[in-house]
């Protein structure tokens, strides 16, 4: 594994927004809040920003696919997913988690039109990755069941999308209890990278740059990763690596903040996410 790959993993490992039960905030004391029918106190932008937890900051791959469909971009995206030569059995669980997020996104985003054999191959990669990160027997059985039904044509692609969405939204988050808190945000990071890359590829292939403004304007997601590069990275990765990572994220952020994203911008998103993915 390269230094940069290791650094990516270390940095993403810090990106856990999934501890929803710990810190709570109280509104400025106001007698009205103690009155039975009083509405909740209106919060200021500063109070919101200070209290916010990132539990839903990163959209799911299936949600992204639905947004692609609404933008008129849905056919043939399977062909845009590159072959990945990931090893999902390496010793470093963090590396496997990011890679698993990438292959999970590949499977979810292409489920509608991927050839059966390719879909099964991707699902088997997800299964291998989940096993390697210690996700437990329940999710393995669930994946086995899904793979068997794909193999036997026992599930329609539309229903499979639903089932994979349920898996991603309701079951995968539970793996933190067996695999550890760190695994889930790493999987999300991998899925986000692969999803952004595929969205950019699909927009370029369909020549519908107007969709970029609807699908790629997610500056706070980029800032979410950027903050950890700046805050956590200084003690976890070499400075030259940080410079490269920070540069990539700064490029993505600049584009994500634009009111209107152009075809040139989308080309840059594609090349930048290509570069980051090639490091894994």
């Amino acid at each position, binding site marked *: 594994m390269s230094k940069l790959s290791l650094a990516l993993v270390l940095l993403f490992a810090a990106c856990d927004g999934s501890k929803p*039960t710990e810190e709570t905030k*109280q509104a400025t004391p106001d007698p009205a809040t103690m009155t039975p029918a*009083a509405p909740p106190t209106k919060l200021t932008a*500063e109070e919101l920003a200070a209290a916010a937890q990132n539990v839903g900051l990163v959209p799911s791959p299936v949600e992204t696919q639905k947004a692609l469909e609404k933008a008129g971009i849905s056919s043939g995206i399977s062909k845009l997913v590159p072959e990945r030569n990931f090893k999902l059995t390496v010793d470093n669980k963090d590396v496997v988690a990011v890679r698993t997020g990438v292959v999970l996104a590949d499977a979810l985003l292409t489920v509608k039109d991927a050839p059966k054999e390719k879909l099964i191959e991707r699902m088997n990669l997800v299964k291998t990755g989940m096993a390697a990160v210690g996700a437990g027997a329940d999710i393995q059985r669930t994946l086995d069941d899904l793979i068997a039904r794909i193999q036997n044509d026992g599930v329609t692609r539309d229903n499979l999308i639903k089932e994979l969405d*349920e898996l991603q939204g309701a*079951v995968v988050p539970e793996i933190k209890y067996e695999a550890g808190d760190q695994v889930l945000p790493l999987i999300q990071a991998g899925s986000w990278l692969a999803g952004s890359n595929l969205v950019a590829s699909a927009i370029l292939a369909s020549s519908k740059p107007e969709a970029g403004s609807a699908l790629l304007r*997610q500056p*706070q997601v980029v800032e979410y990763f950027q903050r950890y590069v700046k805050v956590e990275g200084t003690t976890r990765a070499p400075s030259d690596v940080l410079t490269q990572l920070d540069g990539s994220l700064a490029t993505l952020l600049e584009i994500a903040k634009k009111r209107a994203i152009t075809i040139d911008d989308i080309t840059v998103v594609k090349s930048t996410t290509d570069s980051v993915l090639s490091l894994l």
Partner: protein
Amino acid sequence: MHSALFSLFLSSAYADETTAESCLKNKVWESYGTGWALRTMATATLAQAEYKVYLVTLYAGTEYRVTACGDAELANADVVLYDSLGNQVLRDMSEDREPNLSYTPSSTDTFYIAVHATRLNNALGKGTIAMALTYK
């Protein structure tokens, strides 16, 4: 239909959690039948007038629903949606412990969901509120 997923989902729902989470997971599962899908779920234990804030990215043109379930300690739980600048977009007006909101953004952006323990049955106690963001 989704027997394996259903049993896994419910086994995790009832193994070690609050009544608020069980209530919410049942609502989310039922909503799958009408085309909704889950983005995220989170749980908070709050005293009266305390709140929890969640940061979410919402896609333009996608319909979203925020659903919450408070446990029996809650007399009134509320959810409020704010935009990234802190402007209030929507808030639930109900006086109960199972509030919900629906919203379809016109542009992709980041939003805040605030979940409030507005009123508890015992003003000095604590209650648990589970929140889910679903979409279709």
